[in-house]
């Protein structure tokens, strides 16, 4: 580890990350190192900027008028916000799954194939679709109905379809923004199992409101909260077991024991 370039060692590393919406500072001085091929959970009360941080990793905030950032987000040693970086390219490497399942109003097959096709995939599309659906643990449920609309699936299936869709683009990192908040407990467990499997090949960063989920499903946990200016700050970051059993900060302890948030 010490021989390696540190910034290459982490999947994503933020340095003094400050995120702004207009004049409002939404996130203040975040220094976060995401370990590759692990699941990192970001938890914290509403409005603490966890989604903002997550969305800054694949530059989805670029669409928000007035958004700007200071500091650095390093991916393979390269600042994602450097002037010569194309945000479209960033999103090919860093995929995203959203809070509410949002399959395209197309067939199941097309949902998966589309991303690969627009990114210039030239190989066997059937194989790619099957591979992605298998990796998302959805293949057995949909293999006979690939032509059916993605919207005809149940909520949990839709969310796994969205994961399969993200996988088909062959990202390195998958961002998940409260992926289970619209799902029932059984569908939630399936997604969590799936995340565990996927973490063998992908780096996963998940924002969640559900502390049990963070405790169950993640390897590392970052706890965010708001400071006096209502800006989001990272209070504590470490291995999940440590954060939940032996938090170093009083605020973390209050939050995970349910006294706050």
């Amino acid at each position, binding site marked *: 580890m010490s021989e390696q370039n540190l910034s290459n060692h982490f999947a994503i590393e933020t340095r003094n990350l400050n995120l702004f919406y207009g004049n409002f500072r939404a996130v203040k001085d975040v220094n976060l190192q995401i370990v590759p091929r692990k699941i990192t959970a970001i938890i914290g009360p509403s409005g603490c900027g966890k989604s903002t941080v997550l969305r800054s990793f694949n530059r989805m905030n670029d669409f928000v008028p007035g958004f700007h950032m200071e500091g650095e987000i390093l991916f393979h040693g390269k600042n994602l916000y450097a002037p010569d970086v194309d945000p479209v390219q960033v999103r090919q490497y860093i995929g995203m799954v959203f809070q509410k399942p949002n399959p395209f109003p197309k067939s199941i097959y097309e949902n998966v194939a589309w991303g690969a096709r627009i*990114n210039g995939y030239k190989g066997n599309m059937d194989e790619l679709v099957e591979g992605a659906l298998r990796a998302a643990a959805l293949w057995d449920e949909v293999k006979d109905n690939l032509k059916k609309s993605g919207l005809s699936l149940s909520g949990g299936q839709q969310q796994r379809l969205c994961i399969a869709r*993200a996988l088909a683009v062959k990202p390195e990192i998958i961002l998940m923004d409260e992926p289970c908040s619209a799902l029932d407990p059984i569908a939630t467990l399936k997604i969590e199992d799936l995340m565990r499997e996927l973490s063998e090949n992908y780096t996963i960063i998940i924002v969640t409101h559900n502390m049990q989920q963070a405790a169950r499903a993640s390897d590392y946990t970052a706890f965010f909260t708001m400071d006096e200016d209502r800006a989001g700050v990272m209070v504590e970051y470490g291995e999940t077991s440590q954060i939940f059993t032996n938090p170093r900060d009083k605020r973390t302890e209050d939050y995970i024991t349910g006294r706050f948030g």
Partner: protein
Amino acid sequence: MNRSVVLSETGNLSVRHQWGKFFQGLFLFSTVIGLIVLGILIVTVVDKTFTLVAVTNKVDPATLADRPLEELSEEELRQILRENLRPARLRTIERDQAPLDEMNQADLTALVTTEIVKPTTRASYPLFQSLTRRAEIEAEIRSEYPDAQIYFKAWLTWDFLQRSMSTKPDLAGVRQAVKGSLWIIFITILVAFPIGVGAAIYLEEYADHRSRINRILQTNIENLAGVPSIIYGILGLAVFVRTLALITSGAVFGVDAGSGRTILSGGLTMALLVLPILIISSQEALRAVPRSLREASYAMGATRWQTIWHHVLPYALPGILTGTILTVSRALGETAPLILVGASSLINKDPQSVFSFFTTLPFQIYNWTVRPQPEFRNIAAAAILVLLAVLLSLNATAIVLRNRLSKRI
């Protein structure tokens, strides 16, 4: 425990329900008013289209032959024509139509009717009036035109659609008006749809909504949608008919129509007129595309254009087409701008190209309603029915198209 307490009325619940009922009734009332007005409109038009007419002949057919005209042989009809028409008139007819010897029985009968018998509608009575007070009306006609024939006449006939314009209501038709309207609509859609949707995509998807210029632009488009259509007519007259006369008359293409008062000018003026409405309705449709769909696309590494083309436009297309349907209806019914751009009030040649002179259905209807002879109101009513039929069929086509496109999944 005590159920009556649980379900006893609290607060002003019954008053709240009454208010709800009141508003429900109010909305039903509004709907009914609308339906009544629509009903009155259609009844009035139908009332005028099918009338009881009193027709007098210049020459009684009974004096021409001992049998009805329809039963006469071709030779007998030719004989009647030769005996009753001046040779000069006969030559004109043969030159304009066909030699008498080549005409069949139906043509000859029609010729005898229009040239010799010359039936003229002396009076026409609307359908419902005729049905309710037929005896009174007949007595009235008898006293004024003792030899008039009285019968029901449908002014809307297949012939009416086929005939050209005429100064005589009995002989006038809407052939050129229908064709002119369809040509104008065609040009309007061809020009306005791509420009309107393109502008909407730019304003909605690319333009910075916070920039001052774009905000001014947006406000202006909304204001333009409310500008009276006659203003667009003046604009069309100045720009297309006058300034661009070389193009709109087809002079630069070698088919000089003589002036810029052509279908092209009319269509372009209509396109300008409907553009603001089309842009605004397309913008609404684009705005209704959920953000989650765009985000899903961007998160896959799609570019802005790929997102627009593959997701935003397909999703918005039904809405855009709904706007287009409204636009077409508007353009089909517009009269004022075309008066200025120069629709011809008497034209007997079918439009051949975009450089032809034209008339349209609403313009024709307007022309007929301002004539003094009451029979023109009857053919105006018939033309209104034709206009409604054209409108309905165009809209039906667009709706079928829209439903097929939006059913893709």
